[in-house]
């Protein structure tokens, strides 16, 4: 636990909607009722103008900071950046973190019970897109009576949701922070998603997605996660973190137990993941990312941003991120510049690969806190008004 400030205790909240009138998805399918899990930190000011929506990556959840109980070992996934005096300062801003539909962390997804037959949806759950996730989050923001979000922020798939927010609901957002992300999933990203999904399909326990009453496809899901983890690191960070070090042995074993530290790390991460993540959700969420292409239906990227040029932007990429490489962010910056938007951009020097967006805390805190301060000042937003 961090000692700098008192422990931030939070609870997960749930909002259920679309019970009477289902929400229509990009696929044309209808979904309802829908539950979204979310958490909030800090307090909303009188004019409800200091709200910041944080969106999470593939395996994240609404628990972005603080602890659910004093016995929790780990704080929320972005605790380094969210809290009193941190990048997203909970003394000044009201922070909301929303989960996604299709996920498995308290929101409606393939492991939820289908009201029609009382059984988990499994593959009967409709395929959702990033735009559908954001559509559902808009209901939550309406429910919280927030007319305009001071900022929308997120890394990786969270960044895709940020970009979708500014395209779908430009009038509801004052500033946007897409971090280590892309405006369209590249063929390489789709390829990695597909290999992860194939690992799950190949697990006999997957059983066409119908496994909730029996053993789960943990081997497939763990393998998918191991592949994912490779893409979140960089060659440099693997050298620094593991090198060719052996795992709890002095010499090669000349067997197929874990020899190298990097193998041990991946196996551990893979197996831990199966304790908290649903294999079907992994299929749905990666599919949503693969479909993501903001220019779709708009011609080019600048056309997609035509209605979003009043928003203030901070785009951040990391030099060794090869999953969402800096040129993806530069493309974003170019398109936003072309529509005349106020866009700040920093390509942060880092050896951590894609994971840098969780690790380069000092540089990100500098960039984000100063940026938010400027937005708040310009819009006359303070905790007291």
């Amino acid at each position: 636990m961090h000692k700098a400030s008192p422990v931030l205790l939070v609870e997960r909240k749930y909002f259920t909607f679309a019970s009477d009138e289902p929400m229509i998805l990009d696929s044309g399918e209808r979904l309802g009722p829908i539950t979204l899990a979310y958490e909030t930190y800090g307090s909303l000011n009188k004019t409800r103008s200091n709200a910041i929506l944080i969106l999470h990556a593939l395996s994240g959840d609404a628990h972005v900071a603080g602890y659910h109980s004093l016995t929790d070992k780990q704080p929320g996934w972005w605790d380094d950046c969210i809290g009193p005096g941190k990048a997203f300062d909970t003394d000044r801003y009201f922070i909301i973190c929303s989960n996604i539909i299709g996920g498995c962390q308290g929101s409606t997804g393939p492991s939820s019970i289908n009201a029609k037959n009382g059984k988990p949806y499994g593959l009967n759950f409709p395929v959702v897109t990033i735009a559908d996730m954001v559509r559902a989050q808009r209901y939550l923001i309406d429910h919280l009576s927030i007319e305009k979000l001071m900022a929308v922020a997120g890394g990786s798939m969270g960044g895709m949701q940020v970009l979708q927010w500014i395209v779908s609901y430009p009038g509801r957002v004052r500033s946007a922070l897409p971090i280590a992300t892309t405006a369209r999933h590249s063929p390489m990203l789709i390829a990695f998603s597909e290999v992860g999904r194939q690992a799950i399909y190949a697990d006999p326990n997957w059983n066409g997605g119908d496994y909730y009453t029996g053993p789960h496809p943990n081997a497939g899901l763990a393998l998918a996660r191991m592949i994912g983890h490779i893409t979140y690191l960089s060659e440099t960070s693997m050298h620094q973190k593991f090198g060719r070090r052996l795992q709890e042995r002095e010499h090669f074993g000349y067997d197929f137990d874990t020899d190298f530290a990097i193998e041990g790390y991946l196996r551990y991460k893979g197996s831990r993941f199966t304790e908290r993540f649903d294999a079907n959700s992994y299929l749905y969420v990666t599919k949503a990312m693969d479909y993501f292409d903001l220019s779709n239906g708009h011609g080019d990227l600048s056309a997609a941003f035509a209605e979003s040029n009043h928003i203030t932007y901070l785009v951040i990429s990391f030099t060794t991120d090869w999953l969402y490489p800096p040129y993806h962010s530069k493309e974003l910056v170019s398109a936003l510049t072309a529509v005349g938007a106020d866009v700040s951009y920093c390509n942060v020097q880092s050896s951590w690969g894609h994971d840098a967006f969780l690790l380069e805390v000092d540089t990100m805190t500098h960039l984000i806190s100063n940026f938010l301060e400027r937005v708040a000042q310009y819009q006359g937003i303070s905790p007291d008004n």
Partner: protein
Amino acid sequence: MLLTTVHFHLPMGTPKANPPTMRADLLAVAGLIQPGEKVLDLGCGDGMLLRYLIDTRQITGRGVELSEEGVLACMQKGLSVRQGDLHEGLGDYPNQSFDTVILSYTIPYLNDPAFVIKEMLRVGQRAIISFPNWGHWHCRLSFLLTGRIPITHDLPQAWDEAPRARPLTVQDFISFCIHNGIRILSDIYLNDSRRLSTGPGVNLLATTAIFELK
């Protein structure tokens, strides 16, 4: 051989006593900016000029800066700044989308100055360019006496150091403008912080030149 070790330092860029200090060339550039203008500062460094223009002239300012260090300093000053290379980044800005595009003390470091200057005039209603003048008599004398490229306070890198700087003089710049059909709206010459009157001697006497172009 003795003379080869002598460096002739131009007295530019010496910090002044009472803060907030602004370099004389930056003050001269600022003097050309009208209140409320939309200004793009290329190679904006730590953002000192943009911050000054926002505080004193209520401009809308944007900066482009190559170094992460510069970008972080600009963010701290509450500026809108984009990290990037001028040669790739300028193309993104729509035609005539700024009142003024500034290039302050950056021109000796550009790979393709002609391209950047033309782009500045496409993106802005006008361009303001300032640079240290190698035509100054100190430089000429230094070169004559030592046979070596002069090293000045403004451009302290020796020929083998990075970033490589390409010197230019007032006369070089005026010739460039004439050959490229670029109109010089006004020109300002400084010797240290002292303003010189324009005339035939400026290329010998000015340490800094500032041009307003269209």
